[in-house]
């Protein structure tokens, strides 16, 4: 007798039904965690719906699920943005930031520059460091860096410390997908220096994060040279 595939449609549907039937916040979180764990594309509409429930535990689990599903979730996330619910929009931006798909980039850019919610701007800044430009040539990666670096540098002046913190994380992350040639690398380090400087940055935690990024980039460069 053939065994049932582990994520058959009925099983995923049962997990979706459990999310819809949850009566308490804790039950909802547990049900969403189970649904997210299967990382099945059929779960996408339900997970996106959970982002708008104002339940942080369930939303974290739903973001994890959408990130695990990856690129297949991007069109649905973009099509279902809730203009009137900051919380939901922040979670959508977090999901897109975690997936790193370039189709989400225009949304991250708009969020970083314009969104009134610091939680949305911080997710966007981190997301710009986590892009996955699969199959890009060195020249295309350079063009992408030319597009993103000025936006992160502008966000070094954001009024909220957590956004500037996320910019430090984003700048460090850029190195992974940009892989800048030696002559370009200092542009990344210069931007981080601004955040690492107590004269120019008010929040000690931001200096420390920028310094951590500089130290790690210096180590990575030393390893590459060796």
């Amino acid at each position, binding site marked *: 007798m053939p065994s049932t595939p582990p994520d058959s449609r009925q099983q995923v549907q049962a997990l979706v039904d459990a999310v819809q039937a949850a009566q308490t916040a804790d039950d909802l979180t547990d049900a969403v965690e189970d649904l997210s764990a299967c990382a099945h594309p059929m779960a996408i509409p339900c997970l996106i719906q959970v982002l708008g429930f104002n339940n942080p535990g369930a939303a974290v689990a739903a973001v994890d699920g959408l990130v695990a599903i990856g690129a297949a979730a991007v069109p649905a996330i973009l099509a279902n943005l809730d203009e009137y619910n900051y919380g939901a929009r922040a979670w959508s931006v977090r999901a897109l930031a975690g997936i790193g798909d370039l189709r989400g980039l225009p949304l991250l850019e708009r969020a970083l520059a314009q969104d009134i919610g610091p939680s949305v701007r911080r997710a966007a800044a981190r997301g710009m460091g986590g892009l996955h430009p699969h199959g890009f040539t060195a020249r295309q990666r350079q063009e992408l860096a030319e597009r993103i670096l000025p936006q992160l540098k502008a966000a070094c002046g954001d009024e909220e410390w957590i956004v500037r913190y996320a910019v430090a994380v984003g700048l460090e992350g850029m190195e992974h997908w940009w892989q800048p040639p030696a002559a370009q690398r200092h542009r990344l380090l210069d931007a981080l220096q601004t955040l690492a400087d107590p004269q120019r940055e008010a929040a000690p935690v931001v200096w*420390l*994060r920028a310094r951590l990024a500089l130290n790690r980039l210096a180590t990575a460069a030393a390893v590459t040279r060796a």
Partner: protein
Amino acid sequence: MSQGTPLNEAQALDWLRQLEDPGQRYYAAWWLGRMRSHHPQAVPLLIQALAERGPRLDPTCGVDEPNPVARNAARALGKLADSQAVDPLLEALESSDDGLREAAARSLGQLGALKARRPILRRLASGPLVAGAPRPGTSRLMEPCEALLEALGALGWQGEEGSTITDREPLLAVVRAYGDHERPLIRSAAYRSLLQLTREDCWGEQLVNLLRHNELQVRRAALLDLGVTGWRPAGAAIAQTLAENSLKLIALRGLVENSPARNHTSPSPSPEEAGLLVAMDDLL
């Protein structure tokens, strides 16, 4: 009744100078604190406003508290770091309005006003069953215990004459009694204060227990209280708490910046600090 908030410092000062519209005075006081005004007129005007007693404002303007102008003036003075404010705030601490006492206590703690320790301790001394008893007909307590306990923690052990207080047990005994208060938010404030005053791990562990409380409001308070104490062993528990990432990030920032282990001379994070930063990255 005016709506909205002042547009700039000059307007805020004008709004606070005029006496006809308490709504304008209310928002002006808030604005000067929020914007950390350095204008030489800001503190004197706020001290005048602190003496104002008046009824609740028209609820249509969104303010629903007695003595609203004085309360906002007290809150603003805590943010402006000017020692001129200490004596007027000590006077406000003796007001019959417990909401004004609450605002005054918080601000005295923020200003590090050592003269406030004795009167604050006096207000708490009758313990959780008297000072901490419910105020009939309201959700409040007889004394604003949370603010009073937090202020004691913020003031630490520096004595008024510049020496360090050596006879610590009487103060600690008063604060410890609130660790058994029936309301978890009061317990959280007591643990926070005790952790700041003693650096004993048992109080940090009590705060970590509150991170698993079934009410979100309690988990939020414990997060912020741990952040203020900078008790680093709480890092992993904070990262896993069921609450908004924004609050967890504020708490973890507190662990990095407020810990006695923080090395202010090194520009680079210690390994322990790097671990906390990595936990923060995951929450962005």
